[in-house]
């Protein structure tokens, strides 16, 4: 597991209290794991911990709804 992926997963675990590393394709919104509040926290933490700025407009839910997609998004923005 590379560094970005482990950082993203640890952020998600901090935010949701759940370890999602074994379910990389689970839909976080449908499962009630993540909501709008959690999404904003995620964006802020990505900024704090990885230094990538993601404006709220960039947050199209369907592109950020699984751990795998989030990791891919973050990697594309680094």
């Amino acid at each position, binding site marked *: 597991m590379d560094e970005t992926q482990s950082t993203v997963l640890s952020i998600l675990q901090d935010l949701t*209290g759940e370890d999602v590393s074994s379910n990389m394709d689970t839909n976080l919104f449908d499962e*009630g794991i993540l*909501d*709008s*509040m959690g*999404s*904003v*926290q995620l*964006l*802020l933490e990505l900024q704090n911990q990885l230094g990538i700025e993601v*404006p*709220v*407009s*960039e*947050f199209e839910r369907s592109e950020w709804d699984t751990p795998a997609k989030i990791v891919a998004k973050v990697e594309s923005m680094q």
Partner: protein
Amino acid sequence: MMSFDPYGNPTYFILLFIALLPLMIGLLYGHRSHIYESIISFVFLLLTFGGPKWKTGIALIIYLVYQICLVWLYSKYRQRADSANKGWVFVVSVILAIIPLAVVKITPAVAHGASSIIGFLGISYLTFKVVQTIMETRDGVIKEFHPILFGQFLLFFPTISSGPIDRYRRFVKDYDSVPTRAKYLDLMEKGVRYIFLGFLYKFLLAYIFGTVMLPTVEHAALQAHGISWALLGVMYTYSMDLFFDFAGYSLFAVGVSYLMGVETPMNFNQPFKSKNIKDFWNRWHMTLSFWFRDFIYMRLVFFMMKHKWFKSRITTANVAYVINMLIMGFWHGETWYYIVYGLFHGFAMVINDSWLRYKKKHQAQIPHNKFTEYFAIFLTFNVVCFSFLIFSGFLNTLWFVPRH
């Protein structure tokens, strides 16, 4: 001259079908003509805003020029190589974008119900589109601004009067391309199905609930004074009318968009099956609630967390829920019942969230089965219908302003 409310009667649909036919044949053969689309848009806008309603047509034109200039200036500012992206320029731009709508909404409250001369059908929905475009321009996700395309986005006639509220980038992507034949055949099939489902909803079910039943139960509730079984009848009947009327309209708007090769987003997804209030807002008037989520709630939370207004994330979320829903209440209109409706849903979200947290913590003790699921749906349905009773303004008639 003829004048219609959009999707108001059979003649409108016949004219629509005739106008769309060449366009549909074009799309089937891989051609899209913006010129032809603009001509039929103009004709249908003329049917809606012309004739006896010509004054609202003038208001629309002035509004359009004003907003296009505003967004154009703001995007010029943002796209300068050395753009400072100052917060105050953004805030002033958003305020300038909202002012016409604010005037239209406040005028009836201060002028004894008279409507403003700058108002026209659909001004609320156009304002959403303008404000979101300014916000996305600020964030840098809209990099190029085309005044003509933006005008076509605002004036897209199938959705002009009451949405669904599309997004500029999404709209332009569809509008500036031609779907493959397989894709377009699929859109056509769905579009036709939606339009016929819309007929069922709006002209049959909404007619039964709204025109046949509602006056009778309202009359009985007024005779009974105060709380009565008839009032409960008003609550359910009004809720059904509201849903089938608006969902019916939305199906027309989405269906016609599809026939034009534009995938306008859906507005409703079986809202009465919601298992809680949060779920409800993901299914009811979705383009509006997603608009509030993306452009108010999330931005508010982002701002409050960044500037550390509150220590607890729960407080932050709750404050944002109430402000978000309150703004939605004010958007509906400046009357006590719209504002109470907004507050009601704001606090419902707060309660819903605290229940979800409690449930997560006590997963082991709280039973979960088919019965609890049905109970959750039943409870949500009743909370929602009660909120619609507030929204309907009927309580105002019942308690404060008796009809003569």
